[in-house]
């Protein structure tokens, strides 16, 4: 197998271009996301405190990514995957028999992206947090 310098450069440029392409789609997804969050909050401002996400920094496979969301006293937590074709993931509503406002599930992430949780807290205000999850693409059949 022989690569000339020119070919190597061409391959590199192609790779760089491919790497840049998803950026446009990403910005668009974020615009959708803000609209969806406004729908959930009724347009209210979101604070930073009161909600947490526990998600892996690196997911070995985007098909099954374990996450945990928690917001003490909250009535509901909505979860969004900003970079998925459709960002909504789930909305957890906690009833009077919930002991803690915490829930875990397993989600699909189409690529490396931010997972966002927005909670409606006990006083009716909203809080928002984000976790970045890197989805790896393996060498062995993806």
């Amino acid at each position, binding site marked *: 197998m022989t690569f000339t310098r020119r070919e190597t450069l061409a391959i590199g440029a192609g790779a760089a271009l491919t790497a840049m392409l998803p950026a446009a789609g990403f910005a668009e997804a974020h615009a959708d996301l803000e609209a969806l969050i406004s729908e959930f909050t009724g347009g209210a401002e979101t604070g930073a405190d009161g909600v947490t996400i526990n998600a892996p920094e690196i997911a070995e496979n985007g098909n099954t990514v374990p996450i945990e969301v928690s917001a003490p006293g909250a009535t509901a937590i909505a979860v969004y995957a900003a970079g998925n074709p459709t960002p909504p993931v789930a909305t957890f509503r906690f009833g009077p028999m919930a002991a803690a406002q*915490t829930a875990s599930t397993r989600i699909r992430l189409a690529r490396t992206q931010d997972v966002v949780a927005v909670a409606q807290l006990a006083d009716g205000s909203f809080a928002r947090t984000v976790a970045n999850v890197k989805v790896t693409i393996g060498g062995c059949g993806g």
Partner: protein
Amino acid sequence: MADNVKPRVKVPSSASAGEEIVIKTLISHPMESGQRKDSDGNVIPRSIINRFTCDFNGENVIDVTMEPAISTNPYFEFTAKVPETGEFKFTWYDDDGSVYEDSKTITV
């Protein structure tokens, strides 16, 4: 109804009054997202479980709206208060109108 849908739930069989317990649920379901295409290039229609609820003696513990981003074989873990002996009821709602149910009793 999707084939072979089978719920599993894990609840302790007993607890002390007022104890907080951890509940886990898993149900076999393909959760077809509506994003995939078959070998002929046609979109495979969405077919998911879109809601899951858990109640204790008729009062709600958790009510989850589920989207196609929930993985195949949906898994949930959450907590509940157990003030008295009673029954947890678990219900999953499928896009196609099917409803899958399970229940567990717990003794205080």
